[in-house]
């Protein structure tokens, strides 16, 4: 590999030829978290208590104590998050090789389908048709599902939790098997609160994205924004979870590098 690659990248970043797109939602107490049936443990929302703000508790400094779940806000799912990945090696955020945190992405746009049907299910057939139009999904890529769901943040329609459960788009088992085994994806990156569809607990098998991705050592990225700002091919996602000992996931800042003129 040429030693000029990073130097070239530095120049490209400085000139705006490579731009950095923020794919992260702001961590705030208002940001919704996944809601499980009441008998299960619940995901803690983000909370912040001021320690000092140039006051008697710290005259020259401002800082806060914060608390949240590992899966609050824009977050990373490690294989250990799901029972299917519990016995895999290096399955927690502290053990995953750092090399895996930077990877290219292919963006699959299902925003029109999701707008038409909140329960849109991504199938293998849909992906194969997509490949016919756009080209084969390369290996070792994040599969970024553009749904424009991030535009619903701040409304009840983001979680879309109705009396019969949540309604949001996601893949079925066939699609995930295809992406994991036939396309060797790094993981699934979504704008919704989970990699699975809102109704996926009723699928057969249930929750296929969590089950198949993590059972095969792949990752999840949830609650992303701005996937509509990425090209179909060519973006690089940088997603480094906090190095939590034995952690099942982590809130994180996710950015994408894209080529093109400065915005």
């Amino acid at each position: 590999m040429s030693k000029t690659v990073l130097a070239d990248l530095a120049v490209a970043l400085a000139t705006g030829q490579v731009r950095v797109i923020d794919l992260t939602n702001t961590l705030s107490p208002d940001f919704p978290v996944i809601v499980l049936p009441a008998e299960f443990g619940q995901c803690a929302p983000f909370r912040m208590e001021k320690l000092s703000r140039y006051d008697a508790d710290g005259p020259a400094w401002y800082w806060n104590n914060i608390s949240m779940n590992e899966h609050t806000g824009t977050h990373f799912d490690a294989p250990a998050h799901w029972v299917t990945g519990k016995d895999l090696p290096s399955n927690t955020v502290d053990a995953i090789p750092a090399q895996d945190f930077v990877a290219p992405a292919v963006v699959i746009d299902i925003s029109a389908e999701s707008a038409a049907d909140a329960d849109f299910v991504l199938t293998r057939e849909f992906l194969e048709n997509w490949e016919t139009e756009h080209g084969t999904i390369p290996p070792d890529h994040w599969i970024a599902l553009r749904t424009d769901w991030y535009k619903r943040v701040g409304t009840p329609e983001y979680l879309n939790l109705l009396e019969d459960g949540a309604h949001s788009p996601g893949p079925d088992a066939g699609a995930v098997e295809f992406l994991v085994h036939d396309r060797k994806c790094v993981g699934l990156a979504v704008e919704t609160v989970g990699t699975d569809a809102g109704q996926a607990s009723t699928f057969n098998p249930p929750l296929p994205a969590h089950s198949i991705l993590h059972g095969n050592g792949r990752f999840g990225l949830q609650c992303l924004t701005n996937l509509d700002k990425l090209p179909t091919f060519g973006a690089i996602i940088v997603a480094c979870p906090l190095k939590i000992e034995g952690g099942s996931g982590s809130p994180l800042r996710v950015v994408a590098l894209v080529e093109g003129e400065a915005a």
Partner: protein
Amino acid sequence: MSEPLTPPKRKDPLVVTRAGHVPPALRSRAATAMAARAGLGRFVLQVCDDCARATYPQRDRCPFCWGELRWQDQPDGAVIEAETTIRSSIDLFFKDHLPWRVGSARLDAGPMATVHLHGDVGQGDRVKIELKLDRSGNPALFAMPEKETPHMADDPQLRVFTADPKYRRVLVTDGRTATGQAVAEALLKAGAKTVFLGNADPLMRYPGQDRIEATAGIEPVRLSLTDTRSIEALAGQLGGRVDIVVNTAQFSRQGGVGFGGNLNDLQSGLDLEVTGLMRLAQGFAPALSGRSDDGDRSAAAFVDIASIHGLTGRAGFAGSSAAAAARLSLLASLRGEMARTGIRVISVLTGPVDDGWHQNVPPPKTAPAQIARAVVTALQQGQETICADEVAKDVLTRWQDDPLLTIREENK
């Protein structure tokens, strides 16, 4: 009859708000003991173990025979033998509230006592004596008409001793629960002008939402007791307009300590019920205190609803009881702070609430409507502690009689 209270006018911004003075606070230990009983709504006097005579005012020994004195509930009848109107006082509170009527009452229980007079009673009248708390939390005898008179609760002297919700604006912290909704509706029925109804998660629907939010007088507000900034934001917006705060937040979960306890449930409960109470107090207590003597619609009370098992602990609900214990402790400290500013701090004690989190608890359980009734009664009477139902009453009675025994009984 009393002059009926009229809806208060909007405040003249050029008029200086009357400072919330309180009557003289320093009292003997015996008077403080009487206050503790007054807070429960009881009418008690000291009775001598030896000569069986009742005495008033409070003393350390019997003034007739030097015998030991004990607190006993007493018949509440009396006759007003003399009355007078005070037109001048050097006390800062009474100076602002002159003229003030007092009288000498011959209590059916025996002693002659100086009492505050309701506007509908005068010399020679048979009256009903109520043992009230004044604005500084000290005991005072108040002579009420023997029979109900028109607009009796609107008497201006009586309102100094109560926190009647009539025409007041109330913040109910959690409107997502049946309890919060029942409390809000009961307050409106009791004449509250507005109930600001807290919702910790405005993006998430809740049972009863359409009905309660469409009710006239209800104003939904964003409020999460686990989010300091949401309290600061609401206090910044409404602090000067809230006259009564009612904290209906509760997080009750089944579980033990060494067996079957859930640490996350404990943390969630402590954060909501204990830290949340302090967040709420820090947000609203200063503004309430600044308006405690601000005319007919002065700020009046801070009400907290907690499980009676905070006094004892409870097998099977160990974590929830621990949160309730901490909550009662914080509230006791807040009461001491607020007594200096004239705001009544009220504790509504409940048994297991009849909700989804107490499905495994056999009846009797506390219905939300009972809690709502207790909140309104405590405010109207100016009580400090009230039991919402028979379970709470039973535990409190046993606890008062023998705390250590009751703790053992409740944790078997």
